[in-house]
């Protein structure tokens, strides 16, 4: 609604196309802090980093959130997903070496909409009242970190390189959305590995979960069939959301990806970018605009 995409079908293409202006806008939003009403900084943060603006979030693909004027279909769908996720989370047993509040969002192939799903799910969860931390575990080009224009900011890499518990809260970047904060992948540390070993990432995730109790931690991971992180993260995440792009990803790929994240006992599927509207699927009965609140409120 706020972001009117070009008619190109793919998110990545759309993102790439809009990358330049987004980055520019992001910097503009980041450098002059007068863009949006500044949210209250986390109380325990000694060096409160500048919050990420709504424009950057929208440019990165945010489709829902507290700033939404009216209900959207995607918003409703994400609401359903977030409710289901929370229900699952509440039903999980407490285990050692497993962060039950961590949700691993992954997919079989790149470009299926992991970042979109993770960002929007995190926004929906935050809007629903739970403090939410979105962690970008995928550091490659075009990832959420880059889309949000925080590639140079400290993040996961810093956390891995400097394993101090107190650092977590300082590294987390708040956003324009209330209760939603983001932990970027972070800039390359001098002397550190360009790509973080999976083992270190899992340890970092456990530390984050320990450092931020009461937070829902959503991990935006690279694709299963391309990297090893999801497989390692599945061992510590409370549940896995496998994003499946409609009309593209083959069943065999999905099954192979599911095999890789088998370490997590709770595997769930999300169909993304569904175009075929059927009568017996959610939202099949059109006219959701009728459920929109009066525009005056």
């Amino acid at each position, binding site marked *: 609604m706020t972001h009117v*995409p*070009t*008619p*190109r*079908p793919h*998110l990545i293409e*759309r993102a790439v196309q809009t990358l330049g202006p987004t980055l520019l806008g992001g910097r503009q939003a980041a450098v002059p802090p007068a863009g949006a009403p500044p949210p209250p900084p986390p109380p325990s943060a000694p060096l409160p980093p500048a919050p990420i603006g709504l424009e950057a979030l929208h440019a990165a*693909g945010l*489709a829902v959130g507290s700033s939404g004027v009216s209900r959207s*279909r*995607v918003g409703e*769908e*994400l609401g*359903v*997903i977030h409710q*289901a*996720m929370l229900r*699952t989370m509440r039903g999980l047993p407490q285990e050692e070496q497993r962060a039950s509040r961590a949700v691993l969002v992954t997919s079989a192939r790149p470009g299926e*909409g992991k970042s*979109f*799903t993770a960002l*929007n799910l995190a926004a929906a969860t935050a809007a629903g009242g739970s403090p939410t931390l979105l962690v970008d575990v995928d550091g490659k080009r075009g990832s959420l970190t880059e889309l949000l224009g925080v590639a140079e900011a400290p993040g996961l890499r810093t956390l891995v390189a400097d394993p101090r518990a107190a650092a977590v809260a300082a590294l987390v970047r708040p956003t324009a959305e209330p209760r939603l904060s983001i932990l970027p992948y972070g800039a390359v540390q001098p002397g550190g590995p360009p790509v973080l070993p999976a083992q270190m990432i899992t340890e970092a995730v456990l530390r984050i979960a320990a450092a931020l109790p009461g937070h829902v931690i959503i991990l935006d991971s690279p694709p299963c069939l391309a990297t090893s992180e999801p497989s390692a993260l599945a061992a510590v995440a409370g549940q896995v*959301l*496998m994003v*499946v792009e*409609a*009309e*593209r*990803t*083959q*069943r*065999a790929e*999905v*099954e192979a990806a*599911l095999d890789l994240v088998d370490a997590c006992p709770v*595997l*769930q*599927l*999300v*169909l*993304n*970018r*569904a*175009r*075929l*509207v*059927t*009568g*017996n*699927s*959610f*939202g099949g009965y059109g006219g959701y605009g009728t459920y929109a609140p009066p525009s005056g409120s």
Partner: protein
Amino acid sequence: MWAQLITEARRYAKAAWRHRWKGLALAWVVCLAGWVVVYKLPDRYQASARIYADADAILGQVLRDLALDSSPAQQVELLQRTLLSRPNLERVVARTDLDLRIHDAYDREDLLQDLARSIRIQAQTRNLFSISFADHDPRLAQSVVQVVLNLFMEQATTNDRQQMENARNFVNQQIAVYERQLREAEQRRADFRANYLELLPDGPAGGTGLEAARNRLRQLRGELQDTQLRGELIRRQVNMTPQSLPADAVGPGGETRLAEAERTLRELRLRFTDQHPAVIEQRSIIADLRASGTGGAPARGGDGSAASRGTGPRANPLYEQLRLRLVDVEATLVSLNRQIGEEAANVERLEAMLRSMPQVQAQFQNLDRDYNVLRRNYEELLERRESVQIAGAARTGAERVRLDVVDPPTVPPLPSGPNRILLASAVLVVGLGAGGALAVLLVLLDSSFFTAQDLRRIGLPVIGAVSALDPAPRQGFAIVAFAGGLLLLIGAYGVALLGGPRLVARVPELLARFFA
């Protein structure tokens, strides 16, 4: 239920739509290649001939009862079936240029089988037949049909003659057999007849020899009785008649002895010739009388002197005559008795013979019947041989199965096939079908997910589906482009049909130039 079906249908339609260009491309490739092949096919020229094989109705009716014959309709059918036998086909190969195409035994086998398949003999109406053959060489097609036609004619005539010859041979053989049997029967019958001639009836109405002998015997006996009665009568007359007449017992005429002798002589001469002994004796008596008496009576004036000169009674001529008769009758009696004896012996012998062989007549009747049967058959066979001869003459005179060539085979000037329009259309259909099939195949191979239901089949909980954020790209242009591609293909089909052989046959060349 319906909703699900519709969902499935939409799902597959959508999936297929994604593969539209692949399908269209395949259709194009198949159609272009197919059309090139169709127009590169060699032309086929069909030569045909029509024959009128008349089952000559009039002649057939004339000869129906006379000659041995199978029906002409059957003959024609038989011909038709035997015409394409292997020896005949080999003859066809040998008499045409087809043997130039033979390089080894396999070629030969293939060629013969191909001929057997492709030479067509069809009955158009009851009497009209057509022979046709198609080849890419028009002259060859014509010569094959010509050779088959000649074979047909040859076979029609030779077949008929052979049958006739067979019939004639059979009849001749039968006649020889019957002739021999007939001879034997005739011989047997003749021998039998010779042995028992008297016991057998002479002819159809005649009695047997035995009956004839009996009749003769009865007749002889009757004659004997008659003769005996006559002898008795004569003997009584002899007894009553005096042996001599008294001397004065002159005749009422008072004639002399000479006159009396002369009268007797006259009487005798009335009955006998001059050479008869009685006549001669009477003449000598008259001569004696004349010599002795010199007509005494007139000289002495009457018989008295002569009678007195005789000095005794004279012999009675009547008596002598009667005695003569009596001797005659007795001689006859003796003869009759002898004949009766002989005849009786004969009858006796025949009766004895009849008693000894009572079945002679039955045997003879049997022999006669056999003989008659044989003779009747023999005569019938002779007649039949005659009729076969007549049939043969009729056949050589007028062809029994008349064969007229209505249309002689000609060298076809224009190709008769292949039916390129039909084949090109078939290629179009096959091409479109191949494109569609490719799309369907890709859809079947595509295991991607279209709805949350699809995803649920994996077996894990699906907690939601997120609709595409951007509206579905407009399909208008895609539809127009795809329809344009299809229309272009159909237009190419039209060009292939109208612009025809030259254009399409040059497609490979054009493509080669394009890629070069």
